[in-house]
């Protein structure tokens, strides 16, 4: 609730318009690029790259001016509270984005695949796919010619081989990094900048290792396991869910990299470090999503 009278209202700004323009180009660029996939003569991807340049550039200046305004003391506690709410509800909306994919996976596993395989209330569907049997992970698809199923799944192997099972290491990385970033924050709050930087570097390292391992897993999937986007609903959900998660890890890693660089440059104080806090909430969110993912995508 409003308590003091100095809520900062920025003067007019060109940034939002620049951002909207960037997004306009982004829509056009990605539309034309994707519609021309495989067409050597198309130049559409340059439009897309331009839009990225504009979007990232605008973000750079935007966050820059927010930091400058904050540093020059224009922000009241109340305004900082606005940022807190803003970030919190943004993360909530991200949760709902993942929810759509969890919903899809749940529906497919509980209903669609069993029905196609002749089980459950609508098992009569099986007359269209007489050779198909419902299993999960789904390695034989209803139309195996159109969507050749994978040779191997990514599911949990026998327990004694845990150490060769990549998701195990990935989970380890991500969960640990959630801890290290919490340590970094508390070090900063105690005014211990050395440890703050140290823990940030540790967090980042773990984050990058995760991204690397995830990339390696995809490489394995495509080269050795025959598991691709085209291998039916199992490959579809596997790649899309881990992929969007990975994409968010990358975003988080970028945010944290910037935070770390600014930290090395002397930014943040024990009581004023919203950039770090927001980054760390984001990181925890990514971590929680991962744990759910491991359960439904890899284990069960």
């Amino acid at each position, binding site marked *: 609730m409003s308590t003091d*009278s100095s809520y900062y209202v920025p003067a007019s700004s060109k940034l939002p318009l620049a951002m909207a323009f960037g997004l306009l180009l982004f829509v056009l660029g*990605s539309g034309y690029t994707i519609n021309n996939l495989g067409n050597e003569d198309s130049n559409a991807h340059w439009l897309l790259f331009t839009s990225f340049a504009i979007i990232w550039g605008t973000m750079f*200046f935007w966050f820059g001016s927010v930091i400058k305004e904050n540093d020059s003391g224009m922000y009241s506690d109340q305004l900082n509270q*606005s940022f807190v709410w*803003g970030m919190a509800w943004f993360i909530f909306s991200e949760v*709902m*984005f993942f929810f759509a994919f969890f919903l899809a996976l749940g529906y497919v596993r509980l209903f669609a695949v069993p029905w196609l395989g002749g089980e459950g209330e609508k098992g009569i569907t099986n007359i269209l796919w007489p050779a198909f049997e419902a299993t999960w992970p789904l390695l034989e698809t209803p139309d195996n010619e159109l969507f050749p199923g994978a040779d191997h799944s990514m599911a949990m192997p026998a327990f004694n081989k845990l150490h060769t099972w990549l998701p195990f290491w990935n989970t380890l990385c991500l969960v640990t990094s959630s801890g290290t970033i919490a340590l970094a924050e508390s070090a900063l709050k105690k005014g211990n900048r050395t440890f703050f930087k140290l823990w940030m570097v540790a967090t980042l390292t773990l984050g990058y290792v995760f991204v690397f391992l995830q990339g390696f897993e995809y490489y394995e999937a495509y080269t050795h396991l025959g598991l691709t986007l085209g291998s039916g609903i199992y490959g579809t959900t596997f790649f899309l869910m881990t992929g969007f998660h990975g994409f968010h890890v990358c975003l988080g890693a970028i945010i944290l990299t910037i935070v770390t660089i600014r930290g090395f440059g002397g930014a943040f104080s024990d009581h004023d470090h919203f950039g770090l806090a927001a980054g760390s909430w984001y990181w925890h969110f990514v971590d929680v999503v991962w744990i759910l993912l491991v359960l439904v995508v890899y284990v069960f």
Partner: protein
Amino acid sequence: MSAVIESNHDDHHHGPAKGFSRWLYTTNHKDIGSMYLWFSLIMLFIGGAMAMVIRAELFEPGSQIVSPEFYNQMVTNHGLIMVFGVIMPAFVGFANWMIPMQIGAPDMALPRLNNLSFWILPAAFGILLSTFFMEGGAPNFGWTFYAPLSTEYAPPTVTFFIFSVHIMGASSIMGSINIITTILNMRAPGMTLMKMPLFVWSWFITAYLLIAVMPVLAGAVTMMLMDIHFGTSFFKAAGGGDPVLFQHIFWFFGHPEVYIMILPAFGIVSHIIETFSRKPIFGYSSMVYAIASIALLSFVVWAHHMFTVGMPIAGELFFMYSTMLIAIPTGVKVFNWLSTMFKGSLTFETPMLFSIAFVALFTIGGLSGIMLAIAPADFQYHDTYFVVAHFHYVLVPGALFSLLAGAYYWLPKWTGHMYDETLGKTHFWMSFISVNLTFFPMHFVGLAGMPRRIPDYSMQFADWNMMVSVGAFLFGLSQLLFLFIVIKCVLNGKKATAEVWEGAKGFEWTVDSPPPYHTFSSPPSMETLKA
């Protein structure tokens, strides 16, 4: 990027920048609100023109003016534009104008983000409309874009459609975050949650609906994109997916979406009825709880749009019961409005006329909704004009009328000028008569068996369709009158007082008409409000 601290000096208000750049770069909630409102008015005429094409084609049986393919593009874009380009932005425009003024805040919590939310919309709709001129034509798969018609069988422009929906969603999410933050963080001292004006309450809850479901829509279109271009099989049985999965995800978004289009209307209408009854709103707290329950229920009723897809019977029954439950909180609202008017001292200025029509005609639309909710009966209603009649009753004399009511109610505040009351009343009566002429007979042809989304129909539906078309043309003309009234009001209406309406309550009526560029640089005190 110059940063100016303005609100530290209470006496100094810097006004708007000069010229065109004022609108382009603004961070002022009133400027942004006005842009949202003008944008949606323009889109109303574009979407409305498409409806006129639809009605001209359906004027008589037989092929009339457009090809079946173009007809589908018209229906699809009419639906998309009306929903995402008219009703939603118009309510956001009201939110921008009124929420800071009603809670006594200097501006929205995140003003730059606010401007970005707006400018995304012209970009998104510009692209959507430009698909008409691209190879393959505009989207033609209905505003509900069911797979696989919208994936494997879609025109290539679907890719642009998908990305437009993405950024539209981003705009809505940012707008909602802004609204929630403003309401949570910027209320004047003493304004507790349960003292907030009902319009603020209705938007507070609507904003939660938006951030909960817009990302789900983004997920749905993302899956479409992957299915079309990257070989996945979310919606393809051959790979183990299911086309019906699309519908579940879409309606998980879609049903809350229709309440997003009506809850702010409830807020607006509550204020107007209260003002012109000269009596406090009846049952304030149950009004708030009713909105909240409608919002919560809206998450568990989605499959009532899918009674005919062959769900297991447990699903059919569950969704039938949960849908019917929504009648309870909605009924509470209707009865509370009536009780507010009961023993009041009613006058019938244009905003009140539109609000009364809202209550009456929304009830008709709601009751046909209850009929649709009866699953076995919906086997006969589904995808006929009965459904079209239902949703136009809740959307046109519902959402659209509430917007018109709100516009007449607050125009004097926004512009500082009164609108022409005689013209306003004429506009109301023309709209009221023609809206019923347009949408009531749709119930009849629907029950008699006319499917929706068809460019031509058999002879038995001819008479009523002609009447519907005539009504629609009249309704379209009436809206031209509205445009004229607004322009006349802005340019040379009579000067309006600060209070404008004698019975009106709320912070917005304690300031001048038009209000200063920055309304409350220091929070007003609750004492200034009339009891």
